[in-house]
């Protein structure tokens, strides 16, 4: 990439210049490749070029033992005919390999036919949701090493019971270019940074882990602000020490209060996946054919918004070149929309919603979430807690999973307390929440005014593909949720 193109223009222009300069991918060249795929009897074709640099530096036992740097590059070519997709990819970005992939992808169709020539035109807006002063992968490793050393010393100084500190900083800089047979041609440049801190606290024979991470699509300098990373380390230490005191979790059905922010993973698992277009087009989702129906209590509004500046789940355009937008999935309790990629939108007679995402050039796009959250309500969070006599207050979670078809979902609390007489009581560990997606939101009885988004660490898995996502939630009360613990 030339110095000039690095500084000029938006993410689209910078991305285009990168692929043009480095791989000689001019519009006419891209048009010829698309025409190779279209030479068979297919409806549409698209190309996805990617160049991603990832570096990670990890510390344990007080030292940075290793540095990693990984460059991934390649092209994926897709041909579509009806519901049928042909996909071929290569890690060699040359016109020849792209043409070969195009011809392989086109082989899903058994006959050839004449086709109209492809004419590409820029489709990008001027928007750049995540401008950075410096690619995070260009920041010298020396500086990251020194920073992790500070993180380590700071964590250990918090409490003598902290025995182990593991910290890592992962920086990614991705450039992508999409060209499609309908003329779409758009590029993007996506930074992504993340700091992870895990500590182990020991007291006598008991050992517990505390973890906290944060990140997003912004300059690493923001994370390196002491106020920001120190509060993150404080959290990891606090959770580990809290877990030393935690008691086994009760088992059974009880009222649950979810804290703001990361507990939004409930929305992601319980309803988000079930509202992805592919499952609904195939009618394999527990939410199939429920558009316009009540799926949540009055007052519950859930959106998926890929346009939030600098968030981990945000994108200027999705991986098919469709601009992202704010999609209202549930409005005041009624199901109003699905998340769509191009293929499923077309087959369902709907509009693409900017949710066509893929892990890399080696993967087919799928309808996926971006940043999924519930809008704030009116209730005072303190009052919500007081409204529960005996139940569970869950503040932070590890991971979750859902069975789309039966609607059953599960997620595991990493910080939770018993609610005793309307007050936060004993911390409990090992709490797992399980429920039924189509009815869990019907049992939301209070919605707080304290909407918060998560810290920027979520990765969603589907069909073996991981993509960065965000979630958010105000404090809410859910009546009668099953809590899995060991205490009867």
């Amino acid at each position, binding site marked *: 990439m030339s110095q000039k193109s690095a500084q000029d223009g938006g993410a689209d222009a910078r991305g285009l210049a990168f692929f043009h300069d480095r791989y000689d991918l001019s519009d006419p060249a891209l048009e010829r490749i698309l025409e190779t795929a279209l030479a068979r009897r297919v409806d549409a074709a698209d190309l996805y070029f990617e160049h991603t640099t990832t570096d990670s530096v990890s510390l344990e036992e007080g*030292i*940075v*033992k*290793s*540095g*990693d*740097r*990984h*460059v991934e*590059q390649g092209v994926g070519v897709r041909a579509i005919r*009806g519901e*049928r*997709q042909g*996909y*071929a990819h*290569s*890690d060699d970005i040359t016109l020849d390999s792209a043409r070969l992939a195009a011809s*392989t992808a086109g*082989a*899903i169709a058994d006959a050839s036919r004449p086709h109209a020539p492809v004419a590409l035109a820029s489709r990008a807006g001027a928007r750049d949701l995540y401008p950075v002063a410096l690619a995070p992968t260009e920041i*010298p490793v020396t500086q990251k*090493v020194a920073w992790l050393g500070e993180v380590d010393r700071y964590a250990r100084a918090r409490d003598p019971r902290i025995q*182990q500190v*593991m910290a890592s900083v992962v920086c990614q800089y991705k450039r992508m270019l999409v060209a499609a047979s309908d003329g779409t041609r758009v590029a993007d440049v996506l930074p992504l940074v993340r700091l992870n801190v895990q500590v*182990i606290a020991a007291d006598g024979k008991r*050992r*517990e882990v505390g973890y906290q991470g944060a990140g997003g699509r912004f300059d690493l300098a923001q994370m390196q602000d002491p106020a920001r990373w120190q509060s993150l380390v404080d959290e990891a230490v606090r959770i580990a020490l809290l877990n030393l005191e935690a008691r*086994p979790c009760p*088992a*059974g*059905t009880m009222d649950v209060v979810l804290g703001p922010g990361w507990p939004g993973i409930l929305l992601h698992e319980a309803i988000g996946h079930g509202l992805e277009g592919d499952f609904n087009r*195939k009618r*394999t989702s*527990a939410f199939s054919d429920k558009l316009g129906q009540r799926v949540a209590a009055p007052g519950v509004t859930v959106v998926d918004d890929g346009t939030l500046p600098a968030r981990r789940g945000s994108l200027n355009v999705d991986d098919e070149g469709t601009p992202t937008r704010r999609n209202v999935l549930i409005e005041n309790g009624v199901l109003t929309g699905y998340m769509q990629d191009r293929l499923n939108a077309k087959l369902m007679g709907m509009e693409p919603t900017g949710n066509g995402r893929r892990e890399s050039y*080696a993967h*087919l796009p799928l309808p996926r979430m971006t940043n999924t959250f519930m809008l704030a309500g009116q209730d005072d969070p303190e009052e919500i807690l007081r409204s529960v006599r005996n139940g569970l207050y869950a503040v932070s979670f*590890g*991971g979750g999973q*859902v*069975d*789309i*078809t*039966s609607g*059953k*979902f*599960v*997620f*595991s609390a990493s910080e939770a307390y018993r609610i005793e007489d309307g007050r936060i009581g004993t911390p409990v*560990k*090992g*709490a*797992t929440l*399980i*429920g*039924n997606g189509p009815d869990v939101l019907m049992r939301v009885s209070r919605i707080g005014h304290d909407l918060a988004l998560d810290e920027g660490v979520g990765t969603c898995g589907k069909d073996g593909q991981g993509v960065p996502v965000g979630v958010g939630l105000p404090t809410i009360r859910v009546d009668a949720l*099953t809590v*899995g*613990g*060991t205490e*009867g």
Partner: protein
Amino acid sequence: MNDDARGQALEAIALQALEAVCKAGASQADVLLVEGDDREVRVRGEEIDFVKQAQGRGLGIRALVAAQGGFQTAIVSTSDLAPQAIERMAHEAVALARETAPDPQAGLPESGLATDRPDLALFDPADQDVPIAARIEDARRAEQAARATDPRITNSEGSQASSGFARIVYASSQDFLGRYASASHGLFSEPIAQDTGGMQRDHWSTTGRRLRDLEDAAAVGREAARRALRRLGARRVATGEVPVLFDSRTAPSLIGQLAACANGYSIYRQSSFLHESMGERIASASVTIIDDGRLPGGLGSKPFDGEGLPTRRNVLVREGRLESWLLDCYSARKLGLASTGSAARGTGSAPRVGTTNLWLEPGEKTLAELIAELDRGLLVTELIGMGFNPTTGDYSRGAAGLWIEGGEIAHAVEEITIAGRMQDMLLGIDRIGSELVWHGRTASPPIRIASMTVAGE
């Protein structure tokens, strides 16, 4: 594929990379080069859903630079195999290593590198000539068989067939150069059953190094359909303590979690609940768990590990007693022990510890017999969520399965969790079934745990 020009060409590239990184200033170095050719198809209903084909390769260079107090280490990887790109990467690796801290335990193996190259039956050359149309046909047969099983099979997520071929070359500055070829094939079917109560999905799969090792496609579809059908009418059960049976698809996850807690890295970090338990009784006396990297045709088999040491048979647990950790060179040095030949390695990362073919030794009774002798309890056929904490042993996961009453299946169960402490669960294993079926690199016969907490209504 075994002894071909392409394999030799890859060896030459690996050696070029090794020479470049040593010249650039590495005191020790190793190079891993992987080239793959993968095909994947999915059929859903009457239609092909997708056909995917790909060639890919990856080169990983690890540079170790001698400094006061140990080696400094870095790993750089790319898919660009052009000589100039390799030269540039080699310099980057050394420069990056110089930014890290010297580590006295870092370094390649001092001795014991693999000298033999046993034929582990990792692929059948004839499979390379099988056209993609034949795999589409396999997927179609599985899909049709699943849909034809019962009128209540109304839909599906599809049936998927895959074939992957790989060449792996590993070279290190300890004068090691090794290469092998392998393949893996799979077939997976996921039908949906429906009645007035709602929809239920389930799946069945078969995997193997050779196409002829796979189960018949129609049998895979039928078994997947049978499993989906028996989940219809699922409901919750009352909260309580009951015996829990894990079938041969859910039991392997317990064995895998136990092996992860015997991983040398979690031992020296003291982040495993087992870290002080070597030599102790950690499971009931009927439990013997083995990891063997040289099972012929095994999906985890390989002639040498990620550091060039010979793979071998390690008994992790013998008759309930913890007998071995799983170690690579680094974690072994941290613990003052020797590697168990368990280094796993991808091109983009340093060696870490991994299992190869891991299994629990089978017992006497079939699953049907175990069900028949259970008065009241749960058979778990699916687990969801990630509720296991390796540091404390706390275990709590979402589950679905079948409720057993008086030795017979009473009804399907869903939306429950099962919980316990891994320490108690292992000691509480009171039955081990006789069926050992491999669906991947980890296998286990059915297991019964005397008591776990089931949370439901």
